[in-house]
C-alpha cells in the first residue's frame, strides 16, 4: 500500500530579551549554576510575576511576519506538572487564548514549487531549568538542578499538519529560523538549544482523509538530524503498518549516534496538565495601535531582501537565496558591495571561499576577513594589482592574520607583473626550454597551449598578469 506521511512541527524559540519573561534576572546563556535566579523564578511563595513588555513585542513581530491573526485578549495559563527543573510545580504558558493564531509560511521547494504551511498558533511561555545527572563526570544517585534558564522567554510556534516529507520539514524550519533571525527575536542556534523542534508524525494510506496515530519526535538538534529522524520514523511506521502492526501514540527520542528513534518511557498521567488561568498575571490586551506600531517597525524579511538583491544588484536567484538565508551574511554582502560595487564578484567570494572557511561555525560576523578586507581585495583584482590566483593566497592570509589586503600584497611582493617586456622574456624562456611543444602546437596540437601557459605562470610565480601572458604566448607561438 502507498502511505503518505503527515507531519506537524512545534518550534520552541528562545527570545533574545535581556531579562526573563516574568522577572529581571538576566537571560544570558551559560554562567555558573544558580547565579541568575530570584524569588520569582525560583518559585518562592507569595511572589508576583510581572510580564516583560518586550516578550510581547517579539511575539507580535513574529506573528505579523507569519501572517497570523493577533488575539486581542490574552491570558497566561498554568500548566501543572511536577519535575525538578520546574520549581513552581507549574509552567506559565498560554492555553485557550494564545497570542497569535492562523498564520502561514510559504515554502519555496525545488523547481520553484511553492507550498503554504499553516501555522496553528504561537504562544508565550517560560523555559524550565537545566538538569544534570552527573557532577565532575561522576553519576551517582542524585541529579543536580541549575535554575538559570528557568523563566527564560520562549515562543512556541505550532504548525498545521501540512508537511508531507522530511525535506519540507527542513525547509519549513529553515524558513522559520531565517525569519526569527531577521526579526532579531531569536538567535536560531539549534546546537545550543535556542531554536528547538519537536515533530508529530503519522502515516495514512494515500487518498485517505483521516490521520493515522501520531508519534511525537524529540531531541533533534540540527536540520540534518530533523531530516534523518523523520526519515527513520516514516520508515519505521511504514514497516509496522505493512506488517499490520498498530502504531502506538508515544513520544520517541532521536539517537543521533545510532541514527534511530527509541521510545521514551511515558509516565502515566503525564499529560494531565490541568491548565487554568494564572491568577497572578493580569490579562493582556493588545489593541490596534499596538499592532500597527509593531507592524510599522517590521524589518525587511528574508524573501523581500532576496528579491531586492536580484533587482538591485542584478545577481542570480541562486546567489540571492544563499546570501539571504541569514541576516549576517546578507548584511556582510551589502557592506562589501557598498565599498566596492561588484555584486557578482562579492557574491562569488562569499559563496565560495568565505563559506568554505567558515565551515560549520557559520559566524560570518566575527570572521577575520571583514567586508572591508573583501572589498579591498576585489578592488585590487579589478585594478590589475593582483591576479585572481594570487587573490586566493591573499584571502587565505587575511583569514589567518586579519591583515588588510594591501599590506599583505606589499609585504610579500605579490603585486602582479604587467610589464610586457618582462613577461615577454619569461615566455621566451619557456618556449626555448620546450622546443618540442612549440613544434607540436604549430603542427596543430592546440592542447599543449594549456601546458605552456601553466609553465609560464609557474615561471612568474603566479604573479604574471594572466591576460597579458596569454596574449604574449599566443603571439610568440604564432611566430
Amino acid at each position, binding site marked *: 500500500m502507498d502511505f503518505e506521511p503527515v507531519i506537524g512541527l512545534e518550534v520552541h524559540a528562545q527570545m533574545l530579551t535581556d531579562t526573563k519573561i516574568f*522577572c529581571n534576572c*538576566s537571560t544570558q546563556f551559560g554562567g555558573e549554576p544558580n547565579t541568575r535566579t530570584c524569588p520569582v523564578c525560583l518559585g518562592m511563595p507569595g511572589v508576583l510575576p*510581572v510580564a516583560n513588555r518586550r516578550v510581547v513585542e517579539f511575539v507580535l513581530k513574529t506573528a505579523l511576519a507569519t501572517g497570523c491573526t493577533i488575539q486581542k485578549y490574552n*491570558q497566561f495559563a498554568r500548566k501543572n506538572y511536577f519535575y*525538578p527543573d520546574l520549581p513552581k510545580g507549574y509552567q506559565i504558558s498560554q492555553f485557550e487564548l494564545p497570542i497569535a493564531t492562523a498564520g502561514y509560511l510559504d515554502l519555496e521547494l525545488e523547481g520553484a514549487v511553492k507550498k503554504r504551511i499553516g501555522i496553528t498558533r504561537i504562544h508565550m511561555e517560560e523555559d524550565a531549568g537545566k*538538569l544534570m545527572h552527573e557532577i565532575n563526570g561522576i553519576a551517582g544517585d*542524585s*541529579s543536580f538542578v541549575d535554575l538559570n534558564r528557568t523563566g527564560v522567554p520562549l515562543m512556541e510556534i505550532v504548525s498545521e499538519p501540512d508537511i508531507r516529507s522530511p525535506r519540507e520539514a527542513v525547509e519549513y524550519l529553515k524558513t522559520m529560523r531565517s525569519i526569527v533571525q531577521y526579526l532579531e527575536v531569536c538567535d536560531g542556534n539549534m546546537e545550543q538549544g535556542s531554536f528547538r523542534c519537536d515533530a508529530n508524525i503519522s502515516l495514512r494510506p494515500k487518498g485517505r482523509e483521516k490521520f493515522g496515530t501520531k508519534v511525537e519526535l524529540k531531541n533533534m538538534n540540527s536540520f540534518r538530524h530533523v531530516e534523518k529522524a523523520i526519515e527513520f520514523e516514516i520508515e519505521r511506521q511504514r514497516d509496522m503498518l505493512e506488517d499490520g502492526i498498530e502504531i502506538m501514540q508515544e513520544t520517541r527520542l532521536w539517537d543521533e549516534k545510532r541514527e534511530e528513534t527509541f521510545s521514551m518511557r511515558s509516565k502515566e498521567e503525564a499529560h494531565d496538565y490541568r491548565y487554568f488561568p494564572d*491568577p497572578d498575571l493580569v490579562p*493582556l490586551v493588545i489593541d490596534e495601535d499596538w499592532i500597527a506600531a509593531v507592524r510599522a517597525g517590521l524589518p525587511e524579511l528574508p524573501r523581500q531582501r532576496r528579491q531586492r538583491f536580484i533587482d538591485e544588484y542584478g545577481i542570480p536567484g541562486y546567489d540571492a537565496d544563499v546570501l539571504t538565508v541569514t541576516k549576517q551574511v546578507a548584511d556582510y554582502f551589502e557592506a562589501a558591495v557598498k565599498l566596492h560595487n561588484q555584486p557578482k564578484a562579492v557574491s562569488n567570494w562569499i559563496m565560495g571561499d568565505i563559506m568554505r572557511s567558515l565551515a560549520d561555525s557559520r559566524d560570518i560576523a566575527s570572521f577575520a576577513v571583514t567586508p572591508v578586507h573583501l572589498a579591498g581585495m576585489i578592488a585590487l583584482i579589478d585594478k590589475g594589482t593582483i591576479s585572481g590566483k594570487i587573490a586566493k593566497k591573499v584571502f587565505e592570509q587575511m583569514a589567518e592574520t586579519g591583515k588588510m589586503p594591501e599590506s599583505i600584497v606589499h609585504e610579500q611582493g605579490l603585486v602582479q607583473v604587467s610589464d610586457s617586456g618582462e613577461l615577454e622574456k619569461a615566455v621566451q624562456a619557456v618556449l626555448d626550454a620546450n622546443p618540442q611543444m612549440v613544434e607540436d602546437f604549430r603542427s596543430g596540437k592546440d592542447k599543449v597551449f594549456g601546458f605552456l601557459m601553466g609553465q609560464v605562470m609557474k615561471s612568474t610565480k603566479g604573479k604574471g598578469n594572466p591576460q597579458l601572458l596569454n596574449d604574449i604566448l599566443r603571439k610568440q607561438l604564432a611566430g
Partner: protein
Amino acid sequence: MKITIKDVAHVAALARLQFKEDELEAMTAQLNGILDSFDKLQTVDTTGVEPSTHAVDVSNAFRDDRVRPSLTPEAALANAPEAEEGCFKVPRIIEV
C-alpha cells in the same frame, strides 16, 4: 456523587500527595460537598455576562526589559534541603 474516590486518588497522585484509604474517603465526601455548592452558583443566570478570570478589572501590567541583580547562589540555595557544586541536589531522575 460527582467524583469518586478514584478521581480523588488520581488528583492526589498528580499533586504528589499520599493519603490513607479513610482519608481519601473523607476527602471525597468534602470535595463533593464543595462541588454541590458550585452547583448552587451555577443556577445564577449569567446571560450576557462576560466570563472573567480575575477579580479586579486590570490589564497590561508590564515590566521593562532591564536586568537587575539576581540573588547570590548561596541565597538561592539557602532553603534547599541539599545542594552541591552550586546546584540543587535532588534524587536521581531517571530520564528515558
